């Protein structure tokens, strides 16, 4: 019998070693797997490479992992938001590496990683500093830039509903990078706000088919990053 459901966030992320490359879903707070990230802070692997659109807000979630000096490098499109304090400070002092990627190129690199396409040409970034050092080719009369696929050891993804097969349904703009990230990791770990009885999710409405998912953990009423930031919370929680 297939049962991908794991009983706790600690068990779900068990085994993530130092040096791992990890895809993390979310666009700002929407879709960020805050509980999985906090469990990763507790587990403590270091020298991680994170691939995520942003670098987190305040001192929680993604930002807490970076603040805890567990991250060597981030690959992202938009490393600052109005509430991001941790990454900018480490970046300015040269303590963290940044690979800046146009957002559509980031999504496509991950999509290709999951789809077995090793590289592709895109017109995005042609003629800009982000083209430098990359192969280019004129196609259809325009300069295109060669970009390589991204695959990772792990993906940490948040969704609204999952079943024991790992079929996933998302919520509104919290879907964002989740579906492509699920396809591009050796081990995909998902936190779902609700576990559905197998067979009750409408097959026409499933966004991520379970074949792309390794482990599912239920996190009911997940934390809202913006509320934590507004309350000036920091993880690990201050006693």
């Amino acid at each position, binding site marked *: 019998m297939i049962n991908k459901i794991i009983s706790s966030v600690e068990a779900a992320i068990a085994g993530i070693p130092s040096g791992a490359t990890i895809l993390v879903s979310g666009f700002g707070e929407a879709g960020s797997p805050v509980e999985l990230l906090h469990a990763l802070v507790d587990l403590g692997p270091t020298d991680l490479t994170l691939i995520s659109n942003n670098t987190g807000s305040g001192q929680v979630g993604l930002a807490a992992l970076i603040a805890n000096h567990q991250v060597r490098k981030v690959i992202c499109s938009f490393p600052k938001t109005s509430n991001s304090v941790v990454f900018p400070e480490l970046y300015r002092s040269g303590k963290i590496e940044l690979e800046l990627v146009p957002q559509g*190129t980031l999504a496509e690199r991950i999509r290709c990683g999951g789809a077995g396409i090793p590289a592709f040409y895109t*017109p995005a970034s042609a003629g800009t500093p982000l083209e430098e050092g990359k192969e280019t080719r004129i196609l259809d009369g325009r300069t295109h830039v060669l970009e390589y696929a991204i695959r990772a050891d792990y993906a940490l993804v948040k969704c609204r509903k999952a079943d024991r097969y790992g079929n996933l349904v998302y919520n509104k703009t919290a879907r964002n990078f989740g579906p492509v990230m699920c396809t591009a990791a050796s081990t995909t770990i998902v936190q779902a706000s609700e576990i559905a009885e197998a067979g009750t999710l409408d097959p026409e409405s499933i966004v991520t088919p379970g074949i792309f998912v390794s482990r599912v953990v239920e996190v009911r009423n997940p934390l809202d990053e913006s509320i934590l930031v507004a309350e000036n919370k920091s993880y690990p929680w201050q006693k």
Partner: protein
Amino acid sequence: MAEVTIKGWDTATMAAMAASDIPDGSYVNLGIGIPELVASHVPEGRELIYHTENGLLGMGPSPAEGEEDHELINAGKKYVTAIPGASYFHHADSFAMIRGGHIDYCILGAFQVSGNGDLANWSTGEKGAIPAVGGAMDLVAGVKNVFVIMHHCTKTGEPKIVENCTYPLTGKNVVKRIYTNYAIIDVEVNGLYVKELAPGVTFEYLQENTGARLLRK
């Protein structure tokens, strides 16, 4: 440098003017900053579908206080609403819409625009500055009509429309039209044409506050 004393249009007026120039039935991507305000404006008798790169087609205005949904946000991470007929999708699909030429217009903010339509809006290139490109390079590569909406000058009064961008480029020769608090300016093959001036702004005043040569329509 002339002292900046004229306010010109406010940002809501700029946003409404940009929306009023977009034809019925268009799909329109809205960027971060002043472009976000455009979502509150759909001209009477038209249907415009606003796209936000983080996975929503059919973006509506900001929600009423207390109605905010933490999982329903725009590219600037601000709370928005979804109109009836809206759809959600993942990032690879969202950028297929953008790069694949399916989006008719995009409205972006800018640090600088040059006389030939080069756009710089992701990095000031200064030491210690955090570069943040987001979806801007994909948008200018894939959307035919790129509009910029921005203040005419920086907070310190420097022109943002310049002969050549000094900040790192987002794309070359991509901007079609610029909406500022002082004027609406079309970027055409032979130069920048002033289409409309804000109340109290003369052509001469506009030229004094612009780093590239302007032409009259």
